[in-house]
């Protein structure tokens, strides 16, 4: 192909709608006959429900229905239990509530105010129970149990089949990975380092809150409009809950106002459908900001890391224990723990590794997917400890990473061989951009000290997984793309159009990417795990190739040309002395201006078992970050001077889009590193709002954030592209902590890095002098 648009920063297809205020998001939609739903939530972290009385609520004017456990346990048409991994959630609480904010009842009313009023009239008699409010309480001997037993789904996720709750404990899942013999490795080491690192619970804070509109038609068909990142998983879950085939469930997804992992797996949908079913009208529920904080969070973690090294900095053994607070329900915590575990030892060649990664039930709101998916937790530990080791050995932090870092052909912890690995290139590029070599420049006068820090990462994508796509070639040679990939800001619509445009030699402007509707789009597992460009990108590329093959067949059949004489170039077909465009070929086939060709593509990644070695990931995320900071020794105040992020993108389909993803992920990483933290008091969130839970704003930005795209193509990605959405977030916190150590010699082990923590660490250090 000569003129291509792939690799070009074309204007995004979603921009015109978004820039004029016309783009529709869930809360902008109205459905005829729609009423409003509100949810009554538990005020207790753990309590049995003795009784519920809804009579006063039902007497409020405008109230159409009140949904409680009585409606879901007695109804033969409903299985009240659901959950993506274990069926440990119920539509509303049945026997007990397990966290503050757990849904207990819901009201549908003509006006939101009537629904609100009705909530306050529902009378509930709770019997409070002892609660476990963090991981250590949950793991203590004799701790009260969140779930006495857990129901398993009929068909679970293939990658999580071996993970089960540990009976009689609050351990939701325990993922183990062993390579070599760590005890032998520690015995062979010259030095051993043991450190514990922690991260608090945080929240995604999409500016758009979760919302759902559900309608149950007279024939039992369920139609749902939802802010979901994985409509097909929601479809399956709703089909199971309401005991219908998936063909009777339709999920439509408008533009999302941000997702970041907070909108994967069922959230509001089961409750909204149940309420709509009872109210016999379409119901809309849009969460308040406070409710969002109680709906889903990012796992808090405690990570213990023990590492044995040789005098020259060679890593010999590493033992990692990752404890993730998964809250009251498993949600997708088991996979978070697994992904966190896989790469908990970091992107390093280590002969002896032992990893234990657990998701643990506590009486806190459920934790689930968050951009970085468990790896931003484990990387905080391994990248901080790399600098602890470097400092003790008097080594350069850059050198110890380059010395031990994975490279093409390295053996991963599982034994599989790693390929398409731009790790060292990322590390070297951020080091050059931050001026690593000049890092020992003179410190400024006064109390302010400058420092630089570096960190890197590796992460797996969800494997096995499926993406199917259909591309329609219309009679005027324009194309329409049907996929289940959700445009949530990451630019997927544009990238998918660019891939089809390049493959077919047509302009991306003549391609329409349809919004997600499960009635029309073929199956896609999920828009998460940074997987869409790689998987769905490949699926639409295959669908485009299918169309080209069909065009070729038409030329062969209708023009009598031998197949090897047919060539494609720039949206035209050449054979013998003839050049035709697609429109002419379609006209020839259909005999008039009309007709459609339908191309399809399927991508199915699998876990292979070769010589006893499992593959873990269809591709790897690799990246590095470098920070330059100023620390005021008198106050602990930190100023981020510069941040550089480099990510192996495989091949940039839309370079501007890639830079947006890198910068955006880095900025979220800055929030997580410096100030984001959900504060709990007896299971209650103290700061469920944007005044007390601080998000990064323009005022917090360093003068420069520099994104660097490293291109090490992947053979199976479309034009070599890999996924990049999460990568840049992961190194931020350790890079900043390492820069602080470089500046003032104190090691922060607990996020977020607030000024008072630096100040107290400096005071502590002074005492030791």
């Amino acid at each position: 192909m000569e003129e291509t648009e792939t690799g070009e920063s074309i204007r995004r297809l979603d921009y015109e709608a978004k820039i004029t205020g016309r783009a529709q998001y869930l809360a902008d939609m109205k459905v005829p006959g729609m009423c409003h739903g509100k949810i009554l939530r538990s005020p207790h972290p753990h309590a049995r429900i003795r009784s519920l009385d809804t009579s006063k609520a039902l007497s409020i004017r405008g109230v159409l229905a009140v949904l409680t456990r009585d409606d879901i346990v007695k109804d033969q048409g409903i299985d009240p239990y659901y959950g993506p991994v274990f069926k440990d959630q119920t539509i509303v609480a049945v026997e007990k509530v397990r966290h503050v904010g757990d849904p207990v009842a819901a009201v549908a009313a003509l006006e939101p105010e009537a629904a609100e009023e009705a909530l306050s009239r529902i009378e509930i008699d709770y019997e409070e129970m002892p609660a476990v409010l963090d991981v250590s309480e949950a793991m203590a001997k004799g701790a009260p149990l969140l779930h006495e037993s857990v129901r398993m789904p009929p068909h679970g996720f293939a990658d999580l089949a071996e993970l089960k709750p540990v009976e009689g404990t609050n351990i939701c899942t325990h993922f183990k990975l062993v390579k070599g013999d760590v005890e032998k490795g520690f015995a062979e080491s010259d030095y051993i380092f043991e450190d514990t690192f922690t991260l608090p619970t945080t929240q995604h804070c999409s500016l758009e809150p979760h919302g759902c509109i559900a309608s149950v038609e007279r024939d039992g068909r369920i139609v749902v409009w939802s802010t979901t990142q994985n409509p097909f998983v929601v479809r399956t879950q709703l089909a199971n809950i309401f005991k219908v085939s998936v063909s009777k469930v339709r999920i439509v997804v408008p533009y999302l106002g941000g997702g970041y992992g907070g909108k994967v797996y069922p959230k509001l949908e089961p409750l909204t459908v149940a309420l709509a079913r009872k109210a016999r009208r379409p119901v809309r529920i849009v969460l308040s900001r406070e409710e969002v904080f109680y709906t889903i969070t990012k796992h808090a973690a405690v990570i213990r890391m023990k590492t044995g090294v040789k005098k020259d900095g060679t890593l010999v053994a590493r033992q990692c224990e990752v404890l993730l607070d998964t809250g009251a329900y498993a949600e997708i915590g088991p996979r978070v723990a697994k992904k966190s575990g896989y790469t908990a030892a970091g992107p390093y060649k280590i002969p002896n590794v032992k990893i234990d990664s657990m998701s643990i039930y506590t009486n806190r709101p459920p934790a689930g997917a968050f951009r970085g998916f468990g790896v931003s937790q484990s990387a905080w530990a391994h990248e901080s400890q790399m600098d602890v080791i470097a400092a003790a050995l008097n080594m350069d932090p850059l050198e110890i990473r380059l010395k031990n870092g994975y490279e093409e052909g390295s053996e991963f912890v599982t034994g599989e061989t790693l390929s398409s690995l731009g790790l060292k290139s990322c590390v070297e590029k951020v080091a050059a951009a931050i001026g690593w070599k000049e890092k020992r420049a003179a410190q400024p006068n006064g109390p302010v000290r400058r420092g630089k820090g570096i960190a890197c990462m590796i992460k797996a994508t969800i494997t096995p997984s499926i993406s199917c796509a259909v591309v329609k070639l219309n009679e005027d040679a324009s194309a329409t793309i049907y996929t289940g990939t959700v445009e949530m800001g990451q630019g997927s619509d544009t990238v998918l159009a660019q891939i089809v445009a390049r493959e077919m030699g047509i302009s991306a402007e003549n391609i329409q990417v349809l919004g997600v509707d499960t009635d029309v789009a073929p199956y896609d597992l999920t828009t998460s795990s940074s997987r869409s460009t790689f998987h769905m990108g490949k699926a639409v590329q295959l669908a485009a190739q299918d169309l080209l093959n069909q065009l070729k067949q038409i030329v062969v059949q209708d023009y009598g040309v031998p197949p090897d004489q047919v060539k494609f170039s720039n949206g035209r077909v050449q054979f013998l002395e003839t050049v035709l465009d697609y429109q002419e070929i379609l006209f020839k086939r259909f005999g008039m201006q009309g007709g459609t060709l339908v191309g399809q593509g399927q991508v199915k990644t699998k876990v292979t078992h070769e010589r006893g070695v499992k593959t873990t990931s269809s591709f790897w995320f690799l990246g590095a970050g470098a920070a330059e900071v100023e620390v005021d020794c008198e106050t602990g105040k930190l100023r981020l001077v510069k941040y550089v992020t480099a990510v192996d993108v495989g091949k940039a389909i839309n370079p501007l889009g890639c830079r947006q993803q890198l910068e955006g992920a880095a900025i979220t990483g800055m929030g997580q590193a410096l100030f984001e933290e959900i504060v709990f008091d007896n299971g209650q969130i103290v700061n469920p709002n944007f005044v007390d839970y601080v998000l990064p704003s323009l005022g917090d930005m360093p003068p420069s954030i520099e994104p660097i795209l490293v291109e090490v193509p992947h053979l199976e990605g479309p034009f070599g592209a890999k996924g990049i959405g999460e990568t840049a977030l992961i190194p931020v916190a350790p890079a900043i902590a390492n820069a602080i150590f470089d500046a003032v010699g104190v090691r922060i082990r607990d996020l977020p890095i607030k000024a008072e923590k630096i100040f107290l660490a400096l005071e502590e250090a002074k005492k030791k002098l």
Partner: protein
Amino acid sequence: MKKQIHVRVNGLETELQVEPRMTLLEVVREQLGLTGAKLGCDIQVCGACTLLLNGKPVSACSVLAVDADGGDVLTIEGLAGQGSLHPLQEAFMEFGALQCGYCTSGFILTAKAMLEENPRPGEAEIRSYLAGNFCRCGCYQEIVQAIKRVAGR
């Protein structure tokens, strides 16, 4: 008890019957169907609901509609001219100053108000003036670049 108010919305004289408790955001979104401004935090922190009231940026989630009586309201839907976008809209697209788009209306209207106060702001002023608008996708650098481009004209 509903109250009648009179507002000019995007240049159109409009009579509205509103409950005294209703916010300007609710009225604009629900009664007028202008949904470009979004509810984000509901406590005037995030900037997603920003509208221009008499040329000044306000958090419409926290302004009572009755207090806007007699006022002039501009929403993102009223920003583009006939057949042409506002230079800020063009610049936001050119520099990639948005991803999910939920904050975009608020940023553009705030930037418009700033440029009316000061047509040639420096980078520091841009950063400070827009520090009350959140972009969770993290397009801050592109937003600053886009506004600088328009400010330079």
